């Protein structure tokens, strides 16, 4: 490593700041906003005083199983307790995507080749991308600290919280930097990053199930606040350890990057087939081929998540009392009879279904990528109508998302049934909880298809819709809105508060029809508009 290996880093950082001038503020401010949302909801709930609200949650078996024990019984403690996992997730995703976008994505498109032909060192690109992620995380960390001080938190604890979150984000930047070294496409790097994030969440919940202070917290970024303990002892020295921990993937990334060619991965590309397999002869076959990789990744992730929690949750049932918080929410009151573990897994499946809906959106948006990158053009000049081309990806998206929920249903059902020692009953209930989420997931698929068919420029709106369904859920859980507003979310028709054995089927059928109508409008819209092509 010589100084000249880094020449050009400064210029590249300025380039990246310029390219990310809209994206970077989003990743910086979103975690701050999430912290503020937690503050607002807790202030709204705390008419009896913050101390007693938090104490109530802390004693609630269900809530503390998911979120772990409260460390400090004031507003700052509430933000740490309820907000850190979301903030860690957002900073993690933001850091990953930022690093991948400026490293592997640039190599993939050939931009790096253009840049490297100038006076730019071999480590400049990686260094600039990582420094950009550090800028992102430090800015966000400082703003988190300042917003906590503004809300009345102690300065030391506030900065320790911000610092912890920054280090968590930097760890995932390192994971991104490591992931991009392995293969020649950015999709693999994103997959690796998302898998590590998912693993982090699973480990965080396992740590909480174990009481919040298991050894897992030392290697689980989403639980690092349980080591640094902001507002609850302020163990600031441990940040040094975590910084060293976050540096490990970065060091490996530097070593690997020196050993590979520009544009290549450490793992060499395998050759393809010289001729297509006989069945590879339709737009649907192509769509499946294009969706297969990410589908398998999602399948592994969701099944792992559901199986782990399905296997753990029957053990929770024996711990008496359910959840004052849950019965206070005003769904149905079946939860008292069935046991804590059953409700716990029910919530877990509900959350997974929200992420399966996100998968369905990304799967439909593959259409836009294929179109804007000029590959749709290569198909619709053949014996392929626009409707057939568009429906090939929609069918893939619908079947893959349904397959995810069916697979989690089967695997989760088996795991829960075996762990509970009541296979037939347990299996069908868990299976039902999973597959009943297919209609709401398909509603998001339909909305995305409609946007793509009619107004392809604003397909990002489907993410806004997805996020607002999530927000409805959060607002309802915080008792800011009541159930009638919650009904605007299609997920409420397969909600975890409704006993699966008594779930009304008619609304789900209506949702299925509605998603078919939305999709149909999208198809007609696409038939009647220009295909966008490369200039």
């Amino acid at each position, binding site marked *: 490593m010589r100084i000249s290996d880094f020449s050009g880093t400064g210029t590249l950082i300025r380039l990246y700041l310029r390219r990310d001038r809209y994206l970077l503020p989003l990743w910086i401010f979103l975690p701050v906003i999430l912290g503020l949302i937690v503050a607002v909801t807790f202030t709204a709930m705390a008419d009896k005083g913050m101390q007693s609200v938090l104490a109530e949650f802390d004693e609630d078996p269900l809530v503390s199983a998911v979120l772990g024990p409260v460390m400090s019984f004031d507003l700052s403690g509430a933000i740490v307790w309820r907000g850190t996992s979301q903030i860690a997730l957002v900073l993690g995703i933001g850091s990953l995507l930022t690093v991948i976008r400026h490293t592997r994505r640039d190599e993939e498109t050939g931009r790096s080749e253009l840049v490297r032909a100038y006076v730019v060192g071999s480590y400049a690109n990686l260094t600039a991308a990582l420094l950009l992620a550090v800028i992102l995380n430090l800015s966000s960390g400082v703003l988190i600290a300042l917003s906590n001080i503004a809300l009345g938190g102690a300065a030391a604890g506030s900065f320790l919280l911000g610092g912890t979150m920054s280090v968590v984000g930097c760890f995932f930047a390192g994971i991104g930097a490591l992931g991009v070294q392995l293969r020649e*496409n950015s999709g693999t790097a994103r997959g690796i990053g998302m898998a590590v994030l998912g693993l982090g969440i699973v480990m965080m919940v396992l740590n909480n199930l174990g009481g919040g202070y298991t050894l897992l917290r030392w290697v689980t970024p989403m639980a690092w606040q349980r080591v640094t303990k902001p507002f609850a002892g302020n163990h600031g020295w441990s940040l040094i350890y975590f910084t060293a921990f976050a540096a490990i993937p970065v060091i490996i990334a530097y070593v690997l990057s020196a050993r590979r060619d520009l544009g290549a991965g450490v793992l060499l590309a395998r050759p393809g087939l010289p001729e297509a397999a006989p069945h590879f*002869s339709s737009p649907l076959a192509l769509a499946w081929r294009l969706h297969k990789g990410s589908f398998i990744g999602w399948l592994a992730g969701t099944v792992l998540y559901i199986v782990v929690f399905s296997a753990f949750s029957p053990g929770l049932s024996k711990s008496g009392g359910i959840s004052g918080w849950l019965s206070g929410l005003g769904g149905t009151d079946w939860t008292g009879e069935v046991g804590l573990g059953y409700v716990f897994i029910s919530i877990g499946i509900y959350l997974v279904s929200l992420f399966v809906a996100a998968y369905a959106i990304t799967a439909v948006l593959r259409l836009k990528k294929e179109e804007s990158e000029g590959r749709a053009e290569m198909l619709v000049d053949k014996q392929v109508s626009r409707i057939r081309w568009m429906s090939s990806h929609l069918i893939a998206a619908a079947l893959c998302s349904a397959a995810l929920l069916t697979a989690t249903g089967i695997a989760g059902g088996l795991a829960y049934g075996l762990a509970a020692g009541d296979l037939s009953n347990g299996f069908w209930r868990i299976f039902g909880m999973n597959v009943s989420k297919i209609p709401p997931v398909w509603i998001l698929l339909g909305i995305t298809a409609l946007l793509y068919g009619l107004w392809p420029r604003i397909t990002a709106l489907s993410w806004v819709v997805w996020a607002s369904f999530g927000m409805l859920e959060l607002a309802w859980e915080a008792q800011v809105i009541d159930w009638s507003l919650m009904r605007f979310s299609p997920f409420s028709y397969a909600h975890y508060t409704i006993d699966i054995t008594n779930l009304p089927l008619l609304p789900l059928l209506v949702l299925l029809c509605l998603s078919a109508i939305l999709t149909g409008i999208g198809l007609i819209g696409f038939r009647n508009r220009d*295909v966008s092509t490369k200039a």
Partner: protein
Amino acid sequence: MNVINIQKLTKSFGSTQALKGVNLTVRQGEVHGFIGPNGAGKSTTIRILLGILRKTSGEISLLDGDPWKDAVRLHRRLAYVPGDVTLWPDLSGGEIIDLLGRLHGGLDVSRKKQLLERFQLDPAKKSGTYSKGNRQKVALVAAFSCEAELYLLDEPTSGLDPLMEAVFQECVAEIKKSGKTVLLSSHILSEVEALCDRVSIIRQGQIMESGTISQLRHLTRSTVNVETGTAAIGLGKLYGVYDMSRKGLKYSFSVDSDAMTKVMEMLLPLGIKSLTVEPPSLEELFMRHYGDDIREKGGYAR
């Protein structure tokens, strides 16, 4: 019979008007060159012919059908090669060719193998590793292995080396021999000159000229080099004579086709010692059509 018939075709993208009344006819069995500078509307016209873009107004027929309404039916009878081929990076070239052929409704396997050999393309490589020229070859092999009546080729040879360019020209000649029709949009004027029966020149969304290359030549100037016995006084001032230069009794100038008789009448009595007349190349035709624009903007001087 006309395979393509376009009358007063316009296409707007929001406030920008890409095509401002294009008239284009392509006859059965001809290779029709479609030339024009970047952004003149060549690709837009071809994409309307493919039914990918919808016309704003005008008449357009393709193989006696409507390219927008009958797209799928018509696509059975045509093959298309885009100028900037994007492939699925994790599929091999061979897989993509087979897939495209099957979507066309069948591909001639022996012809495919022969074309892979002629274009020297390794079909087992993932297309993400292909260079620009190799990606172009994938689209060419797929299109030429398909049985079609009409081939729409939109700058099909961009990125090909001269050897491959020659293979491409052979392929088009074979297609023409079997009575098929080709619309070839291109920047490579030697390619158009070698292959095309007729040429249409498009500029700023309008067809400027259309005809055989020899017809187009009549519209422009030939270069004359002549040595006379006595001085040719006033030759440079003759109507239709341009760019006169003189070295002793050797004159070099360009002359409008319709002024040629007048010039010859003036030269004959002076005693012609040597004379060469070069017809304009397509390059010069092209430059004449677009040079004006560029000259006005001070970029190009001739």
